[in-house]
């Protein structure tokens, strides 16, 4: 067995040429070492997964490889050529493409304009859109990617935006493609589709670096995996020789206990009720159609469904930033349909928005300031005129510590935090508010294992203490793990509400696809 493994590794390094070699890469941001003496080799034609907790340095390392961030020291080789890392370079010039964690798309531009930006085919000074289109259409046919080239990016779904990003990379003939958490924002169906594309790319001779927090995805798609922890490489393994548990231990540095807070109480008293909520929008006349739901005290009500079936609208109506076209909303048996989001917050309805970067934080403000957003009126944090800086700082320090957010620097600009850590800050803020009801939408999307567990535990504890949770998630496993009752949403309707004990994953999957009524 051991011998076999060694034999296989030999064969790997002998039989396959190295596409990328990074040597001794170190990058500091102030006193923080984001990458510490990192060595990474990626073989030609493999899918190489890169995993690690939020803030481990994955994005930084890939930005260095793409040329967007300059390392303090180290060397990078593409095949046998060394990249001019210290003089500055850009990935596409060396066949390296990157699909960034937050997409790099110009929203008011058309799909085609986004694809060609920077390498525009031209006739004199004019854009040659005809030959651009021909080239892109050809690519789409070759890789089985479909998208309307004339639509504006701001009208696309996230899955479609990602296809644009993939086309951008292919358009530049990238041989090495970096995907930074491509699945974090996708629905299960879109993930399947992405994996098909990935296999197609590999078959066509591309090399992929794939970042994800989901270990099942690593097992499914990757040939080898490298684990980062606190800016260092913990190890590289080929998929045949690891299992998810071992990877998790490598990532976190110790074993994760599987304990869960026990659930007992569940009362019949209604905490939050939607009655016949309808929402018509200019784009969709049935964004929500007669939705009736009831979250009881001590209960987690899960809403599952493929994203884009009205969950975002439901979330917005529930928290009060969108008025329903008809229907009523009650909180502890008082009608709150007409109340603003701020009034609802004060009544005790907290929420975790699905797009935390866009809806949950104010870029450019410090962590401290972001931590008190919407809480700036609480008497512990603010006097009648001045904010209570000491108290705010203490709260920020405590939350950063409790949620393991690095670096624990309350005065730092929030945009200097890793994507996952920015999310954790929002979640920490909302969970620490003394709310009766929590409305959480995709609360663990893009978060690492420990953070996910922490949030799941917090939600369960919240319900255990008599609060209610309305949990909206496209992650079926999450819904099954946490919910007491499960409602399935499809095309703006609630198809069915099931007790958790009576629901099976298969049945929910069919309902989510709108198959079984």
């Amino acid at each position, binding site marked *: 067995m051991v011998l076999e493994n060694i034999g296989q590794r030999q064969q790997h390094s002998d039989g396959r040429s190295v596409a990328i070699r990074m040597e001794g890469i170190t990058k500091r*941001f102030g006193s923080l070492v*984001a990458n510490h003496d990192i060595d990474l080799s990626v073989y030609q034609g493999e899918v190489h997964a890169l995993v690690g907790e939020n803030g481990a340095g994955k*994005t*930084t390392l890939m*930005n260095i490889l*793409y040329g*967007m*961030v*300059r390392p303090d020291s180290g060397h990078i080789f593409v095949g046998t050529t060394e990249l001019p890392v210290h003089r500055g370079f*850009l990935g*596409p*010039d060396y066949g390296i493409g*990157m699909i*960034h*964690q*937050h997409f*790099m*798309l*110009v*929203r*008011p*531009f058309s799909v085609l*304009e*986004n694809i060609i*930006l*920077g*390498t*525009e085919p*031209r006739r004199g*000074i*004019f*854009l040659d859109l005809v030959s651009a289109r021909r080239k892109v259409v050809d690519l789409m046919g070759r890789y089985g990617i479909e998208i309307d080239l004339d639509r504006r990016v701001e009208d696309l779904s996230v899955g479609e935006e990602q296809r644009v990003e993939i086309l*951008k990379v292919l358009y530049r003939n990238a041989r090495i493609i970096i995907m*930074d958490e491509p699945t974090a924002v996708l629905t299960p169906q879109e993930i399947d589709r992405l994996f098909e594309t990935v296999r197609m790319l590999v078959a066509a001779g591309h090399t992929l670096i794939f970042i994800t927090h989901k270990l099942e995805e690593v097992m499914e798609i990757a040939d080898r995996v490298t684990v980062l922890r606190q800016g260092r490489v913990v190890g590289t393994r080929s998929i045949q020789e690891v299992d998810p548990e071992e990877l998790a231990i490598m990532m976190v540095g110790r074993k994760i206990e599987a304990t869960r807070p026990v659930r007992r109480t569940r009362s019949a008293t209604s905490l939050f009720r939607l009655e016949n909520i309808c929402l018509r929008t200019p784009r969709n006349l049935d964004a929500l159609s007669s939705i009736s739901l009831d979250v009881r005290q001590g209960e987690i009500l899960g809403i599952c469904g493929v994203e884009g079936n009205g969950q975002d609208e439901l979330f917005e109506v529930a928290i009060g930033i969108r008025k329903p076209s008809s229907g009523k909303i009650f909180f502890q048996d008082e009608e709150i349909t007409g109340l603003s989001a701020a009034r609802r917050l004060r009544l005790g309805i907290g929420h975790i928005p699905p797009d935390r970067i866009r809806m949950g934080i104010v*870029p450019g403000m410090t962590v401290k300031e972001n931590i008190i957003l919407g809480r700036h009126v609480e008497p512990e944090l603010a006097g009648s005129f001045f904010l209570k800086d000491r108290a705010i700082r203490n709260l920020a320090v405590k939350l950063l510590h409790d949620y393991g957010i690095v670096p624990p620097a309350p005065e730092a600009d929030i*945009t*200097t*935090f*890793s*994507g996952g850590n920015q999310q954790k800050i929002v979640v920490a803020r909302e969970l620490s508010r003394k709310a009766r009801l929590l409305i959480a939408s995709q609360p663990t999307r893009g978060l690492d294992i420990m953070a996910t567990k922490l949030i799941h535990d917090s939600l369960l504890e919240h319900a255990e203490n008599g609060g209610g949770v309305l949990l909206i998630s496209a992650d079926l496993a999450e819904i099954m793990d946490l919910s007491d009752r499960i409602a399935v949403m499809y095309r703006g309707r609630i198809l069915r509400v099931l007790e958790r004990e009576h629901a099976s994953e298969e049945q929910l999957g069919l309902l989510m696809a709108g198959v079984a009524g």
Partner: protein
Amino acid sequence: MSDVGAAIGISLALATVRKAVPLVFASTGGFFSERSGIINIGLEGMMLFGAFSGAIIAYFSHNAWLGVLGAAFVGGLIGCLHAFATIQLKANQIISGVAINMLGAGTTVFLSQVFIHGERSFSLAPQDRLPALGPFLPLTYIAFGLAIGATVFSYYTVGGLRLRAVGEHPRAADTQGVRVNRIRFLGVVTSGVCAGLGGAYLPFFSGSFAKNMTAGQGFIALAALIFGKWNPMGALAASLLFGFADALQETLQGRAHLPAQALQMVPYVVTMIALAGVIGRSIPPASIGKPYEREVTEAST
């Protein structure tokens, strides 16, 4: 009676175009700067510099076209100043613009006094002015051509695509090898050139340079740009509207029984109403006002 009506109508139409010219120049200039992501509230000052340098060069060289060129050059120079402050030094774009306006007001009066023996205004001899071409000054045709050219540029050329991209999402452009700050620099300098030309129109139109003769037209041009949804053609239409308000005001002077001051308010009131009506519908470039630097702006994701 109807003949008089027709005559008034025609003169009103001609006056509308004439009044719109400096606004068209300056709002097209604003387009180049603001679409690249740099706020240019200094259009007013750039116009004033253009007005003064155009007039003074024509005054001494007796060559009006040399004055026009000089105005464009000086405008471009002031554009460089704004670009350097906001792009290289990352100064606040509003403050830099305000500084340019104050600099324009002070410097032009000072230089006028230096060159024209203590006078804050001076007239151009008829032979030092631009000759009319048909009913308008030649600069009029140039202004309208410029607005059309800017439209073609922005939607059909490589440079135009990149200009709009760096104003919307500079990081996205940067990841594709577009030199964000170089394009912004060019945008702001072009903006200065256009504003300088718009300024030069004023003394050639009125026949003299006067202290502070732009009288807020740089700001009205900015309003035209916003009202025109940050598009050169929209800005052109808005400039004509504001030009019409001004022309109407002048036609009514002496005819209507209203105080002159009340009538002079008309263009500004129209500007305010236009802006109030359009607020929320005119979407500025997403990254306007934000300096761009590769590693500092959310390198982490």
